[in-house]
């Protein structure tokens, strides 16, 4: 019977390997497209390399084109930048980038971050403390010499419309600057799918597809369950900045999450994907019966009233129905984009505690 074990082991190994490969292949469409939900980037399998297109945040035209491959292809397509993979030294300036790299266990490729105070990932904090990753400061004012010192192969930055500082000089020096517009995705799964970009960059393509498929499955399952709920509690999101309350628009990422979690977002019918602005008078008159207030951005009710005493007039505040991710702010910003199913679990626990399978929060907590 001894001979059976190695055979069984190798059979299993082959089965797992084939399974992983077939999942990988299934994910790629006939046209070579690797992306299902994201609307602001494309990964296209070509012969011997992968084309990366980053699309403009506003008009979805192709803003950045790159070829990802281990070696320079014999015929590099015109206007494409070549990015040699796996990228071993990367500057990642946004929390969501770090969260995705963390999920892929690729933090060891990060050699530069914006600010250590915004980090939650312990490994990366240790890397910055030991000098393996350097702090570059605010994106708009990064000194060029710091970037040169980092010896990064690739700089990934959140593109909000402004060019990266010293972009022309850095390109001349051989740095590749990759704009990231994951913030513009309207669908939670669209934003999470950006993990594939990082997977392809650091040579963990299959892992990234596997992780994303697992996230997708869990998210869609929860969403399907919530489609059946008969009562949808009303929800408001956001807070005052000065005299203006900024709330997510009806087609935004946050509005989608509320809807998928079985909530009735008060401003669901507003158009657009950014924020709507409301005066405090409007907020009060339009939210007299709104049950939940999420994402005020503070840790306690006291902090909220100190920030602006008029916020205590919001009925959900008076009824103790305020929830936020503020207890672990950095953790939320790092991981929520890549794990939208966990955000969804939290929102379901807030809106429909009787239906929630998991009875503890991942990111959120009640604000007391």
């Amino acid at each position, binding site marked *: 019977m001894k001979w059976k074990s190695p055979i069984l082991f190798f059979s299993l190994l082959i089965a797992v390997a084939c399974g992983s490969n077939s999942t990988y292949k299934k994910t790629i469409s006939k046209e070579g497209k690797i992306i299902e939900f994201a609307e602001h980037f494309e990964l296209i399998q070509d012969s011997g390399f992968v084309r990366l297109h980053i699309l403009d945040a506003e008009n979805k035209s192709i803003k950045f084109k790159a070829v990802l491959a281990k070696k320079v292809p014999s015929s590099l397509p015109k206007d494409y930048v070549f990015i040699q993979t796996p990228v071993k030294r990367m500057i990642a300036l946004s929390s969501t980038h770090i969260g995705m790299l963390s999920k892929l266990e690729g933090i060891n490729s990060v050699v530069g971050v914006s600010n250590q105070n915004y980090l939650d990932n312990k490994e990366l904090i240790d890397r910055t403390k030991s000098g393996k990753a350097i702090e570059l400061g605010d994106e708009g004012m990064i000194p060029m010499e710091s970037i040169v010192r980092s010896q990064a192969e690739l700089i990934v930055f959140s593109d909000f419309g402004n060019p990266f500082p010293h972009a022309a000089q850095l390109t001349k020096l051989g740095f590749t600057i990759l704009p990231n517009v994951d913030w513009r995705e309207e669908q939670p799964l669209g934003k999470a799918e950006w993990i594939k970009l990082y997977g392809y960059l650091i040579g963990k393509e299959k892992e990234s597809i596997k992780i994303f498929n697992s996230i997708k499955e869990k998210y869609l399952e929860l969403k399907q369950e919530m489609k059946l709920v008969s009562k949808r509690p009303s929800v408001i999101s956001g807070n005052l900045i000065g*005299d203006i309350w900024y709330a997510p628009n009806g087609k935004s990422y946050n509005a989608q999450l509320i809807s998928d979690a079985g909530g009735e977002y008060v401003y669901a019918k507003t158009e657009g994907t950014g924020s709507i602005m409301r005066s*405090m008078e409007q907020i009060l008159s339009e939210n007299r019966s709104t049950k939940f207030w999420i994402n005020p951005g503070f840790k306690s009710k006291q902090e909220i009233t100190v920030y602006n005493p008029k916020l205590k*007039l919001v009925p959900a505040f008076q009824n103790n129905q305020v929830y936020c991710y503020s207890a672990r702010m950095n953790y939320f910003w790092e991981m929520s984009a890549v794990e939208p199913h966990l955000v969804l679990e939290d929102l379901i626990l807030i809106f429909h505690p009787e239906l929630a399978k998991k009875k503890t929060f991942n990111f959120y907590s009640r604000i007391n």
Partner: protein
Amino acid sequence: MEKRHRILLIIALVLLPVLAYFHLTIGQIQLSSADFYNAVFNYSDSETAQLLVREFRLPRLIMAIVAGSSLAIAGMLMQTLFNNPLAGPYVLGINSGASLAVALGTLSGISMFSSNIGLIGLALIGALVFGFIVLGFSLFVRNSLSLLLVGIMIGSFTSAITSLLQTISSADSLKVFTIWGMGSLQQVELSQIGIITVFFILGIFFSFFLIKPLNALVLGENASLLLGVPVKNLRIIIIVITALLAGLVTAFCGPIAFVGLAIPNLCKMLFKTQQHLVLLLGNILLGALFLISCDILVQGLEPFILVPINVITSIVGAPFVIFIILKRLA
């Protein structure tokens, strides 16, 4: 007081309740007379309409009156003291002092300083500290023009430090500071109106005692001295009253531009007099009318765009100041 002055003042006095009525009723939420009556005499916080009147519209209107009048009086005092129509309540560095204190507090990242109360406290401290610094200078600097330059230099100095703090602050802190700098009449609460009104009335009350010496000061410092006006003491009192009034407004509303510069000039053009009794009453009324009008515009634009009050006062005030300069050159 001339008949013409009386007529103009009565017109302004009649316009005040008319504009105040518009200000109270123009918001996006329609409110009835009964809502206003009940909000004052029969208040129930479960009624949204009454809540809006009591917590938002009344404090906002009162603040518009207080801020407009205070800045206009402070501007008038400064223009007479420095005998310069381009002087304003903020030339003493009061605004810059308040800004520096708010910048130090908010940009430090300490959340308490980013709160409503924190901002009020910081601005008040900053305004008073810099008011007293200039007051200290006024004891040694005899010439008003030199004192004006000292005020401007202090303003430049504090602005430079504020800019430095801005470059090293976090995005959130910078946002709080920037929004504070846009000014707002909506931050004040009904419970704060009492203390605001007390300081406002004190400022106006003491201003009335200055009417005669101010009339003399128009003739110049030397002439005033010959007329027996204690110019040095007068200067100190004017600075204290200006710091009080401008500091009060800056603390509760943030810096509000151009009111203190434009309204005293408008008053002089309308009333065509140097009599400070007329100018004082005129500034109180016109300052209030101007800021109420600007805020009506803010509220009228609210369905389309939310505009900070400073944007409106600057858009209206800046061309007017240019007009004054050109008129003087002509």
